[in-house]
């Protein structure tokens, strides 16, 4: 963590975004002596111990950040107990033998084991199938408060599973790993798009939309981390301050709208897609990286950052409303038969 004091407000159950802490290790400079907050239930340290997450403190975290900035993201080891007494060479060996992030398929490790439903708050308007690739609790909550019944599905779900729900829209969540490895999810998304079902993706979901449309993805030298990242929404011309946590990005042209590259080539089974025109809708202003995609001829869009925030600013919450609008004007749900794509822009 670059912020020097960590754990000041302790740990509470209300703000949990997932069923467990997913980081492999936690590096801080000054851990809190004890938490101070009327909502705290226990200390962060206790929670890390409880969950078996290794932590280290007292480091020059700024020096570490600069190291990563100049040399790019890399594998790392934090050792405790008897391991920590091993020689540096042996420790380095262990780090180097860990798998690289490029080519890592991790969604399967973090996804939910079985489908669960987050009921709509108030009047139910739509049903959404949300593929859990590492979803945060806040996302279904946002949808639910807008009258959506959210079915959170395991990453291995099929289009038939989605159809069985009669979903009005499909959502792909954020999640870890290299999007290039997510073959199953991309194939699933192509079916969704082909069916003209409204689609919204966040983060990993954005990368998958990119790949489904035929764009490439690549590993950033400097991943985007933090909750102060400026993004230009080209539709409104406004800048939003966003929370981001991604090491991969979509490689799509920003200058003008393009036809989805996937339309130009037949897939392995010889089927031609008709996704139509695609626009880069959001741009990261720090380094001009693609932060969002919007299909102009089919009802699909995605962003690379986290409109659900938690943690982070709430500037982009309106994207959930945009998803609702998309479902409102769409005549398609997975309950109906697929037909040709319709201009929904």
């Amino acid at each position, binding site marked *: 963590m670059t912020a020097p004091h960590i754990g000041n407000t302790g740990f509470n159950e209300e703000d949990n975004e997932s069923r467990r802490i997913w980081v492999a290790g936690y590096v801080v400079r000054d851990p809190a002596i004890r938490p101070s907050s009327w909502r705290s239930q226990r200390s962060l340290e206790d929670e890390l111990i409880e969950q078996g997450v290794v932590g280290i403190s007292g480091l020059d975290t700024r020096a570490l950040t600069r190291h990563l900035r100049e040399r790019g993201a890399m594998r790392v080891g934090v050792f405790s107990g008897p391991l920590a007494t091993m020689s540096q060479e042996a420790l380095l060996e262990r780090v180097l033998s860990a798998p690289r992030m490029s080519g890592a398929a991790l969604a399967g490790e973090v996804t939910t084991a079985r489908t669960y439903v987050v009921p709509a708050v108030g009047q139910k308007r739509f049903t959404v199938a949300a593929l859990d690739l590492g979803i945060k609790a806040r996302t279904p909550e946002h949808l639910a408060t807008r009258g959506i019944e959210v079915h959170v599905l395991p990453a291995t779900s099929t289009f038939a599973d989605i159809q069985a729900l009669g979903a009005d829209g499909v959502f792909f969540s954020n999640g870890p790993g290299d999007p290039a490895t997510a073959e199953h999810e991309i194939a699933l998304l192509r079916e969704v798009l082909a069916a003209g079902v409204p689609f919204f993706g966040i983060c990993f979901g954005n990368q998958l939309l990119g790949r489904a449309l035929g764009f490439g993805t690549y590993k950033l030298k400097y991943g985007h981390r933090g909750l102060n990242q400026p993004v230009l929404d080209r539709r409104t011309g406004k800048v939003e301050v966003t929370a981001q946590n991604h090491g991969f990005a979509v490689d799509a042209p920003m200058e003008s709208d393009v036809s989805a590259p996937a339309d130009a080539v037949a897939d392995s089974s010889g089927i031609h897609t008709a996704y139509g025109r695609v626009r880069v809708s959001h741009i990261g202003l720090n380094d001009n990286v693609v932060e969002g995609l919007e299909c102009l001829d089919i009802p699909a869009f995605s962003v690379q950052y986290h409109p659900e925030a938690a943690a982070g*600013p709430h500037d982009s919450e309106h994207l959930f409303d945009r998803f609702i609008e998309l479902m409102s004007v769409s005549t398609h749900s997975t309950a109906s038969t697929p037909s040709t794509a319709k201009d929904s822009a």
Partner: protein
Amino acid sequence: MPRRTDITSVLVIGSGPIVIGQACEFDYSGTQACRVLREEGIRVILVNSNPATIMTDPEFADATYVEPITPEVIEAIIAKERPDAVLATLGGQTALNAAVALHERGILEKYGCPLIGASVEAIQLGEDRQLFKGVVQRCGGETARSYVAHTIDECLAVATELGYPLVVRPSFTMGGLGSGFADDEVDLRRMAGSGLHDSPTTEVLLEESITGWKEYELEVMRDHADNVVVVCSIENLDPMGVHTGDSVTVAPALTLTDREYQGLRDLAIAIIREVGVDTGGCNIQFAVNPSDGRVIVIEMNPRVSRSSALASKATGFPIAKIAAKLAIGYTLDEVRNDITQVTPASFEPTLDYIVVKVPRFAFEKFPAADPTLTTTMKSVGEAMAIGRNFTEALQKALRSLERQGSSFHWHRGEAPSKEQARALLNQARTPTDGRIVLVQQALRGGLSVEEAHEATGIDPWFLDQMQLINQVAAHVASSPQLTPEVLLLAKRHGFSDAQISQLSGMPEEVVRGVRHALGVRPVYKTVDTCAAEFAAKTPYHYSTYDEETEVEPRERPAVIILGSGPNRIGQGIEFDYSCVHASFALRDHGFDTVMVNCNPETVSTDYDTSSRLYFEPLTLEDVLEVVHAERQAGPVAGVIVQLGGQTPLGLAQALKAEGVPIVGTSPESIHLAEDRGAFSRVLAEAGLTAPRHGTAYSGEEAVEVAREIGYPVLVRPSYVLGGRGMEIVYDDETLIGYVTRATEAAPQHPVLVDRFLDEAIEIDVDAIYDGHEMYLGGIMEHIEEAGIHSGDSACVLPPVTLGQEELERVRESTLKLAKGIGVRGLMNVQFALAQGVLYVLEANPRASRTIPFVAKATGVPLAKAAARVMLGATIAELRTEGILPPAGDGGAMPAHAHVSVKEAVLPFKRFRTREGEVVDSLLGPEMRSTGEVMGIDSDFGAAFAKSQLGFGPGLPRKGTIFVSVANRDKRAMIFPMKRLADLGFDLIATKGTADVLRRNGIHASVVRKYSEGPGPKGEPTIVERIVAGEVGMVINTPSGSHARADGYEIRAATTSMDRPIITTVQQLGAAVQGIESQLAETVRVKSLQDHARELNFYARTEDQA
């Protein structure tokens, strides 16, 4: 969207003199604004009555008006300059109020120059408490339950509903003036009474008390495309109840979860939109209930504020600079982040360090004032420190205050017992200056964090950190020797070598020696707005004990400039002015300049000012480490100690002893001027006279000296600035009492006893000496007679009553002193002329408080020239280069020269006694002013009148004048009073004074003295008439110490009613001239640039200028 093309000229309104609640942060913001606008090719017209500012230097605007900030004057400027727009959001409350007044008089409309930044509607929505309440409600927020009242009866009715305690807040006042807690009806009547008066709209807000809640501030910026970013969050360590300017504050906020912080952020953004601040910055304050998180919006400032300056320095995000860009049409994403140079400004800075700001108070200057901290701001300055954790930042900030007892301490054998700790904590229940040290001592004495939290309301997280500091101290104290581990632990929690010395029992130098031998030295990190996400191009550093340093090597020789630390009375913006100019001049001349300072309000701590900035305390240890780091980085030409006032000057000897080269006047020469005995020898050799004097180490010795040289005597401790502890003493008893107190103030230095010269004219001189030649910057004649501190005295340049022969003697004497002392650079001399004898009162081989005034009065960049001389340039060279005029100097102004008057601005109104009365406004040898204004015109009367208009209400044009003078002044009063009567004023006087006037044919009605009480038919006393607003000006010269009660009440009443008060005969004469000139003429305004053209000092042609 690029910048607006319809704006080619902008009038920028400054903030006027430095007062409590409105200090040099607005020079910082205004200077940035002027720079930005000029870079954009916009013609900048500036009005500001404060000559000590950087922004009023002629090079920062196209037309600089050092004129009073009043609607009439601004109208005259607008009429003359016809700007396209007016920018008032960067000049504090003064500028905002002026903008509203201009709007209400239809002046903006008439001349077609609208406000940019915030509209009048937005200003009113943000500032009017009732309207603002509606704003907050529409944004879904809560405000404290409250009611607006316009009369005392309405106030009492509200109190019945809300109960006590109640918060009283007058509308539209600055720095929370007049606000506070009313615990009962007596309090309420008193506070609401003066609040109703202070409020320009005669209204006060009464609200439920939320004392003890957590307090937060967010700095928000918006552009015209409606992009909004939060630049910084600030958390107050002192909970609600203490004005944020008087609180210890921390950035970023440390005890909120993301959910709560984002809740505040959402509200802040909604509010700035609803208020409709079109472009620019504003700050919004919140209170959070620590037990359930209930949020109350306290207030917002629809302008750049003191907190904006702090936030800018804390984050590296220059709010004022960007606000200026947004005002002329840019959007946040079009503005580049200066520090990374590749990313846009449309982001939110993230901090990988902790910033702590601590206030600096001056209660010692106002012994009668109640030191309790309330919602009215009372501090006169602040220090900021940066560390990699809170403990480090806090301890650095406390030592940056440069005040005995401001830091945590662990003197051996003095640990408080449990009982003592309880007593300390009990004391800490009432917030006062230094409360944090009381809490630290109470924890040291064994009390728990819970107990401390219960007593003070300070969040347990902060108290835990203080406890941690105590634990580290205990560890250091119990360590048998200073190992690298022990030292590093202490250093990581901000312990100074001095504190380690206390704990280990070793002298500080030994601690430092051991530490250096063990290689335990700080590294320097960078303030980069982005927690190292992007490379920083701006070397803005702070020290910490961590692993990696970021100081880059450099090639040009570096000059290290030591700044002046937190503002205080006697050492303020004037010294920063000189430091900044030195940096500019030397940067242009082949040097890398390295600024060291810890005052977040200043231009010197702008990362743009110097080649490198170290935001560090100005202690020997911290400065030595910077010097070490810079020597590792490249060649160091030397350190400048002459410009930052007494703070750096006090380090000169020790730095030299450590082998650090001091440029300019040598430490030995400084000693010659500061040491009484040595200085006497200099005077004797030069054949100059000083008032008879002696030195004493005890009360008895002092009495002996005083009897020999004769009373009255002026006594003071040696080595002081701002007349700290200076008094005029008439008898033995007072003298003994004084010495007892003063020697406590400065244990290692004796007391100086001088014969006090009655009825002398005091003369101030600023000069530069290069070893061969002297450039006389200017000769100032004081308006008050000697005995009033020069910082509090009005003065005039060129002198209006001194003859050629006297001026020559001043010049010769100054030159002899410069030679005798061995000055290289600046020197300030104070002379007193009595019965034809020119006495030398003191000579200071450093930049003085008057440098900026003299520079502006004569149009010569004295501080720049001085910095060059310190680095080896000669006056002859500087004349050739055109930095100094080719011939002549400020000591021989041509006959047609305009007249400049400097007037001091005093903070009496801010301070109340425990009983709620304002403190006495008598001037004396101890300096108490916080700032100054300048009036420039073609003659003395007009310049003086402008100087009075530069703060406060100015001199009266008609109405009633009250006069009551001491016997010795009765003769001198007659002529001026006659003139006032002839000018049509009604005079009222106490009986004795009225009698004298009547015998001289001047009618004055007799008014009852305060001590007589109201008459049998209810005839009011003078105090009642003043309070009723019936008196336009008060003339009251103090008589002997026994008849003081009446005088005090009169002066206190006058001060609280904001009427001019004249306490010396000399001031009376000046006031009469001012009034006459005011009545005779309409407003005349002229820019500094025009004055300089007319003076033609540089004999330049138009196109060279």
